[in-house]
Structure formats: structure tokens, C-alpha cells
């Protein structure tokens, strides 16, 4: 390799370096740490090192050995980092509810008796329950699959086998499927409205085009919250739409437009429509204008010219628009929360509960990871399908 070409390459590398750095810091790193969060479980092994050393000797079924109990008491005596202890308690309570009050009582007892053996069952009778000891022993493993399993409504039972959680205890899979379903419906609705609209925009000129484009772009410049609130006003039981229809005598009682799936789909379709219209519009602009007259001159009626020429050519825009809309839609959170009913909440609201409400980052990370995997799988399918079509043509 000559010196100049090496220099050139280094120069090119330096040029892309800011972008690579940006991607690494703001994209790859947070994503990696989220994924790590969903499987790492270091708190227990940090907080209870002595317990961790003997936890392997216990089969998790029989009465926990005295050595384990004593190691746990010694660990509690040795711990001086209150935040670490707090994290450990949260971790334990998340596996077995009741641990918070149990631990505060136990820690007080340990402080009162800084030496020698301690009868924990005398402190609180819950220590006689093997489930609490199982939670302690399980927490000492630095890696865990419990978050990922819980995100899919599974758990490990007492013998360590993977078992489904009872239906009334967890509904993450149902909510995830619903999220993908709402995303698909919104994408379809956007495509059905967006394609004719983009064709209309591309077929006119001058101020008309500006006005039509403006109508799509203007909502983009308003805050998402404002647009959602506006839909709330329109859709509610005594809102604009129902009042108008009632005063026209078209309906006798208000239509249920809000707090249900219909309202969510209407509002999300409106909010996401620009992401469908703009890609299709830019693809349409690149299609030579003389193709349609050419088809007509070969004897194709307008509908056939549309089906055989314009539609296949504009599909590229529809596909990229659909990807954009779908990916954005499955992350939605505010619109379903405000417009939707209880059965329309999407996976982001569950993630938000774990991250903001209960500081359970492992669960939030695991749900995020599952959503990411589901999206990547769909994207792969899409990639396969579009590659097949390109090959077949």
C-alpha cells in the first residue's frame, strides 16, 4: 500500500471517527448496558459474600443448613454500605414480597446483638419459611435468568425447572403481543391513508403542494402531548365528534371512541402519518413522469397502469415508511396511556413502571431486551422478504 493511500485512509477514518464515537457512546454503550442489566445480578454476591460461599452446598429444598444462616447473619453484621444493603433488600423483595419489613426487623436485631449466633426465627417467624431462604441463596449468583424469564411470564420453580407463571400473576407476553398488534394496525392504517395522500401531493404543483405538505408537517411541529390532548377533546363522550353526530341526528347515544383500541389507533395513526407520507412522497418524486403516459400509450387503462407501474415503483417508499411507523409505534407510551383503556396499554408502560416506579432496572432491561429481540426478528423477516422479491424480479 502506498503512503498516500494509507494517509488517505487514515484521513477518511478520522472523518468518520466522530460519528463512530457518537454511535458508540449514545447507542451501542447504553444498549449493551441495558442488555447486561437484564442478566447481571451482582447485588447479592457483593452484599452477602459469606452466604454466597456456602449457598452452593444447599439443595434449596430441605431446611437451610445452620452454616448458611450464620453466614447470612455475619454478612449483615459486616455490611457498612447502606446503599448496597438497600439494593440487596430491593432485590430480595422483588423475588419474594415481604422482605422489606423482614429485613428492617432483622437488621435491627443484628445491630442489637453484634456477636455470636442469632435465632432468626425468634426475630421474625418468616425466617422459618424456606421460600425466604431460597430467595437469599438465589440472590448470591452474579448472573440470573429470572428477569428474562419473568419478562416472558416464566419462573424457576423450587427445583430449578422453568415453569409458566399463573395467568393472573403476569401478562407480559400478552402485552407484548398486543404492542406488536397495535403497531401493525397503525402501520396498515398509515399506509392506507399515506399512499393515496402522497400520490395526491406528488401530482399537484405550486401552492397546492405546499399546502398539502404543510398539512402533514404542521402536526409534526406540535408536541406529541398536545396532539394527544387534542384527540382527547375530539373523541371524548361529549366531545366534538360525538356532539356533532348527535346534533345531526345520525346517532342516538355517544359512540365509544375513547378509552378503547379504536381511539388509540386513530390518535396514533394521526401522530405517525408524516413518517409514512414523507418517504412515499420522496420515492414518488423520483419516478419519471412519462411512465404513466407510456403505459397508457401501450393500451393500459388507468387502473392497470396504476397497479402495474406506479404501485410497484412506490412500494419502496411504503416499505421504508412502514418500518419507520412500526418501529416508532411499538415504543408508544403517552398516547395509549391518555386515550386508551386498560386493555390498550403497551409494553413501554410496563417498562416505565419498573424503571421509574420501582427502580427494578433488571426487569426494565429484560423487557427492553425482549422488545428489541422481537423487533430484530421482525426486521430480519422483512429483510428476507424484500431480498426474495428483489431476487425474483
Amino acid at each position: 500500500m502506498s503512503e498516500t493511500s494509507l494517509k488517505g485512509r487514515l484521513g477518511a477514518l478520522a472523518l468518520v471517527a466522530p460519528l463512530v464515537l457518537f454511535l458508540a457512546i449514545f447507542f451501542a454503550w447504553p444498549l449493551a448496558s441495558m442488555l447486561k442489566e437484564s442478566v447481571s445480578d451482582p447485588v447479592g454476591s457483593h452484599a452477602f459474600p459469606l452466604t454466597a460461599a456456602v449457598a452452593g452446598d444447599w439443595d434449596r429444598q430441605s431446611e437451610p443448613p445452620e452454616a448458611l444462616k450464620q453466614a447470612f447473619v455475619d454478612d449483615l453484621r459486616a455490611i457498612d454500605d447502606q446503599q448496597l444493603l438497600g439494593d440487596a433488600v430491593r432485590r430480595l423483595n422483588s423475588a419474594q414480597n415481604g422482605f422489606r419489613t423482614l429485613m428492617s426487623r432483622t437488621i435491627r436485631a443484628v445491630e442489637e446483638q453484634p456477636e455470636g449466633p442469632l435465632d432468626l426465627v425468634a426475630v421474625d417467624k418468616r425466617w422459618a419459611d424456606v421460600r425466604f431462604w431460597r430467595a437469599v441463596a438465589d440472590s448470591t449468583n452474579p448472573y440470573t435468568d429470572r428477569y428474562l424469564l419473568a419478562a416472558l411470564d416464566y419462573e424457576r420453580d423450587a427445583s430449578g425447572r422453568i415453569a409458566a407463571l399463573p395467568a393472573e400473576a403476569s401478562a407480559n407476553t400478552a402485552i407484548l403481543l398486543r404492542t406488536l398488534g397495535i403497531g401493525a394496525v397503525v402501520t396498515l392504517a398509515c399506509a392506507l391513508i399515506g399512499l393515496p395522500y402522497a400520490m395526491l401531493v406528488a401530482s399537484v404543483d405550486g401552492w397546492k403542494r405546499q399546502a398539502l405538505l404543510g398539512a402533514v408537517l404542521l402536526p409534526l411541529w406540535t408536541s406529541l402531548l398536545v396532539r394527544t390532548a387534542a384527540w382527547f377533546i375530539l373523541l371524548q363522550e361529549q366531545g366534538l365528534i360525538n356532539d356533532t353526530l348527535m346534533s345531526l341526528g345520525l346517532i342516538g347515544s355517544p359512540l365509544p371512541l375513547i378509552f378503547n383500541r379504536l381511539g388509540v389507533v386513530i390518535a396514533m395513526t394521526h401522530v405517525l402519518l408524516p413518517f409514512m407520507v414523507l418517504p412515499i412522497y420522496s420515492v414518488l418524486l423520483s419516478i419519471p413522469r412519462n411512465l404513466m403516459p407510456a403505459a397508457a400509450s401501450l393500451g393500459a387503462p388507468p387502473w392497470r397502469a396504476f397497479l402495474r407501474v406506479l404501485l410497484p415503483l412506490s412500494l419502496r417508499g411504503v416499505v421504508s415508511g412502514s418500518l419507520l411507523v412500526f418501529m416508532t409505534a411499538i415504543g408508544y407510551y403517552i398516547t395509549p396511556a391518555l386515550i386508551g383503556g386498560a386493555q390498550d396499554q403497551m409494553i413501554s408502560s410496563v417498562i416505565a413502571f419498573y424503571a421509574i416506579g420501582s427502580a427494578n432496572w433488571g426487569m426494565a432491561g429484560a423487557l427492553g431486551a425482549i422488545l428489541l429481540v422481537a423487533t430484530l426478528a421482525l426486521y430480519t423477516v422483512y429483510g428476507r422478504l424484500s431480498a426474495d422479491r428483489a431476487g425474483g424480479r
Partner: protein
Amino acid sequence: MRSRIGILAMGGVVAAAIGMAAPAQARDLTVVSWGGNYQDGQREIYFKPYAEKTGKPVLDETWDGGYGVLQAKAKAGNPNWDVVQVEVEELALGCADGIYEKIDWEKLGGEDKFIPSAVNECGAGAIVWSTAIAYDSEKIAEGPQSWADFWDVQKFPGKRSLRKGPKYTLEFALMADGVPPAEIYDMLGTDEGVDRAFRKLDELKPNIVWWESGAQPLQFLASGEVAMASAYNGRITGINRTENRKFKVVWPGSIYAVDSWAILKGAENKDAGMDFIAFASQPENQARLPQYVAYGLPVKAAAEMVPAEYKADLPTEPDNMKDALSIDVDFWIDNAEALTQRFNAWLAQ
């Protein structure tokens, strides 16, 4: 030349990164509360007068609760909030986790000045507030008297609104099922009790519109979307005063709780924050709060100074407290996560 541009660009990125890492300038005392007409009132009686007294600005910000927010801030170190008004649960969790500074009770004039439930090593009580049934007396003349009435859609047609989550929902369901307030948390502590609460919720489920932020239930009532809602008592009285509504609060079966001022661990202005809490706990300052928003006062001397015209609306009035229930913080810190998971699953069914 090209490589030089690259190096310059890289230098820019590095400089920007260093800039981000550099310590921020000294920040003014930042106090965080719950927004709305409540925080407007606090601004008039606490934030502005305190800024005038010390000659330094006070920044006030708003949050919607959530322990994860506080924990993340305190853990990252050098939090950008100093004083935060927290609910009992966040206070108990954070105090156990060590994310708050200890309260200097000497500075506040001693623990005896406060009602007992407002005293904590990590927090000093700011208000006593209540969650209760609200309805529009202009639409329902003979209003509901209890949670059993709230559940009775035959007698009182129309939808209902409840807070989305197990807290302030399961308790009300059990009360509607005839469990006396004093036995609610014992009952919820058993699996049968939780099942019973969810069964009672099943009855009302088709008629419930869920709310998440405190302003929503009043908006639903005002627009006629629902006939009754659970709501924060201060907001109900507030909307009556500002918008001339005739919403009523049903005190029997309401649940009250204390909100506290807490200082985030390692906050830059923790000393000024402590001074601020002392200022907000002075009886003559605190006594002005009920003219803005109808919350009870945890400082005993302040509660006595409240004018009679405002007193009747406060959760701390003996008449209002008679059949009310105090939130059980220990129950909720133990069970919030498991019950929320079950609640979400129940919602999704």
C-alpha cells in the same frame, strides 16, 4: 488537509466530552414538589418569601413521583435536586436505602412540634392529604355515601374513575365489599383477601376509566365522562374555588397519608435545604397553605392557626378523619411490586 479536518472534528468531540464532564457551576437551591395549584400555593407562601429572606433565588421544579427517579439521581452522585417532597413509600424506601440526608430536628424546633406520623429521621411532614370519592353535586343531587355506593352502578348510573395501580384501588374494593377500614390491610395481607379485592374489582371493571395523573379525574368529572372518581382532596376543593364547580368530597372511607420534605444525599445545597424546610415548618408560614389548597398541616401550631372557613375541607378535621383510613406504608413497600404485577396482569385480561 482532509486528515487535519478529521483531527479537528475529533478534537471537537473530545472537547465536548470534557465539557460535559466538567463540574457544573454552583446551582441555586432547588425544591421539587407536585405541581398544579398546590405548587402555585407553595410558591407564594414558601419559595418566594424564602428567596426574599435569604436574598438568593430558589428554583422550583415539578415531578410526578416514582422512587426510581430519586434513586437514580442519588446514586449517580451530585443530584440536581436538593429538597424533594416525597410520599410515605418513597420516604421509607429511600431512608432504608440511604439516599436521603438525615433531618436536623433541632433546627425544626423539635419533633414535638409535629404530629407523630410526620416525624421521620429522613423527612419532615409537609402536608396531610387524602384520596376520596369525588362527584359533581350539580349532576348527582343525592350523592354517594360510601365505596359500596361507588360500586353501585344501578343506583348511580355512569362510569367511574380510579387511579391505575393496586394502591388506592384494592383498599377501596375491599371497603365496597363491606370490610371495615380498620381490617383492610390485615385482609390484604392474605392471598384470600387479595383475591377478594380483585373479584370485587371484576364487578366494576367494565365501568372503570383509569387515571394516572391527579388532574385527570377532575377533568373526567367536569366533562361528564364519569359520574364519580377517586381524587386527591386538595384538587377537588381547588377546582371548586377556581372554576366555581360544586364537586363534593366523600370523607368516610377515604385514605389519608403524609407527604414529607426530604433532602437528597450529597445534594449541593443540603444546608440551605434544611433551612428551607425549617422555614416551611414555621407555623405562621405553614398556616397560610389551606387558603391555596385544602391539605392538612402536620405542624400542630400551624393547624390551630387555620381560619375556620378553610378548616372544614381539611383531611385532618376530626369529622373528616372519623371513618378514614391511614395508608399502611409497611404493607405497600413489601407488596407494591408483586401486587402491581398482578394488577397489570388483571388489567390485561
